[in-house]
């Protein structure tokens, strides 16, 4: 998912300068996980803007309804057409995808040219949880993990080297640019050692093919996921998660 944090209020107010009537819209996707676009965040933002003398209208998207998924968020936009029409700007509490997809929809599909302003800064594609996340993949279009024991050097190495480690590794195998972070290439070495693949380590890997990341990348799928089918399909998993027995993987492992 996309990690994010809210922009400083002064910056947001700067963008809203001269815009009196504002729609504040949230996002039920990543921004809900990061509390930068859930119901509470939308309410708090509305409150702050009201204190600044703005007239605010709120649009909250339910959990799992992402601003960037226009098939769903479009329903809320259409439902609130009049409010959007009558406001000076939309403040979108999502990542940059949500901001642009919604702006495009309001402009092209609804025929309303309107400033759509970002409330958040997107910080990267991350995994992990529930409280700690890290950026491990940058969607470069040409996955190198098969060559590097499953650790992406383009993302995990500060220099994005394909053949590290560099000469700047600190004591404790930490990164040259951040002593809090591990050296990706020492990690790769240790993992290859564990997997008995150290012979791969001394092979030179070719420079990365950046042509696969030629921006902007556009995609098309033949069979889009149906909301209802997807929802019903996900239900058994949720039920098992709530009432089912906890997995006992550790014990099973010990028993062998």
């Amino acid at each position: 998912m996309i990690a994010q944090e809210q922009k400083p209020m002064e910056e947001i107010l700067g963008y809203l300068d001269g815009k009196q009537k504002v729609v504040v819209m949230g996002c039920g996707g990543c921004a809900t996980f990061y509390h930068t676009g859930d119901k509470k965040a939308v309410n708090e933002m509305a409150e702050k803007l009201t204190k600044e003398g703005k007239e605010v209208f709120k649009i909250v998207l339910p959990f799992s309804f992402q601003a960037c998924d226009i098939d769903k968020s479009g329903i809320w936009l259409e439902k609130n057409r009049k409010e959007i029409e009558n406001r000076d700007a939309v403040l979108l509490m999502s990542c940059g995808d949500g901001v642009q997809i919604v702006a495009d929809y309001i402009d092209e599909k609804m025929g309303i040219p309107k400033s759509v302003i970002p409330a958040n800064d997107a910080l990267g594609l991350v995994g992990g949880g529930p409280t700690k996340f890290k950026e491990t993949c940058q969607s470069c279009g040409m996955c190198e993990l098969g060559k590097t024991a499953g650790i992406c050097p383009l993302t995990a190495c500060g220099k994005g080297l394909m053949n590290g480690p560099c000469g700047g590794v600190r004591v404790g195998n930490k990164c040259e640019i951040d002593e809090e972070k591990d050296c990706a290439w020492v990690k790769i070495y240790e993992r290859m050692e564990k997997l008995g693949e150290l012979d791969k380590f001394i092979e030179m890997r070719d420079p990365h093919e950046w042509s696969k990341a030629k921006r902007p990348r556009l995609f098309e799928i033949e069979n889009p996921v149906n909301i209802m089918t997807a929802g019903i399909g996900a239900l058994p998993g949720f039920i098992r998660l709530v009432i089912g027995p906890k997995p006992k993987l550790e014990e099973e492992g010990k028993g062998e």
Partner: protein
Amino acid sequence: MGEKMGDEVYSDLMRELKEGKYVFTGELEPEKAGDVNEPIEMARELVGLVVACNVTDNPQSFAYVNSMAASYLIQKETGMECVYQLRCSDRNRMALLSDVLGAGALGLKNILALAGDHVSLGDTPDAKPVFDLDSTTLIAMIRKMVDEGKDLGGNEIHNPPKLHVGGAAAPGAAHLKAEVAKVKRKINVGVEYLQTQVVYYTDVLDKFFNELGKVDVPILVGIFPARTFGQANFFHENVAGVDVPPDYLEAMRKTKEIKDKEKRKEEVDRVNIEFFTGFLEHLKGTPAAGCHMMAVGYPRIIAPLKKVME
């Protein structure tokens, strides 16, 4: 330091522009080679015909001899003043800054600051495109270095480089209003002269000047007399914003049928002189401060074309 922006004159190109002379510049292209002998030979033929020559920096994103090295060697060997082309495609702001200092140290007096073609268009398409700065921010950075003696971080530069920075403009751009606004932005940050992308149609040029209105920065209009049909056709098919007229292309194509090499050369020259005479006559009536003759590898055409402007 401390002078008002644009007061100092460091290059012959800028001197002639300030004097209000009608200026001609040429173009030299270093190649994929371990030397710059060919552009040096071309430069020798152009001495006295043009005030300065642009030295291309990885044109169309084909990786060739470094433009700074080529500019220095050409200037040293022939005395031809060079316009060192510098693109943002391949260097981050730190490399650009250090290259500008290097250019100053080598005695280069003109830089043409360009964003550059995307690396995917050339012969090294897997390269990581940089574009840390763009043409406008590069122009601003160079002005800051030259005028204030400061780098981007505000650090003092000892003995700042003494050179002029130019920029590009594309009269044939798909969206002329956006292009003109961008050109004005470059003017606002201190570009000292503009060289346009190649133009073939007089109405395209007129529309550009009309849209731009009166500006204080001298503009050199780019023309491209092609040495071969292949060159002209490459431009037509591969260069954005350049539309080569079908009549000219057809006349150039026909020259391929002439078997005798000398007669073919004569015919190519005749086609170019005939086509560009009309264009250059028209140019006299525009606000252009001169003409940038991008006749790469074709120095013999410059003298007859200059004659038209006399």
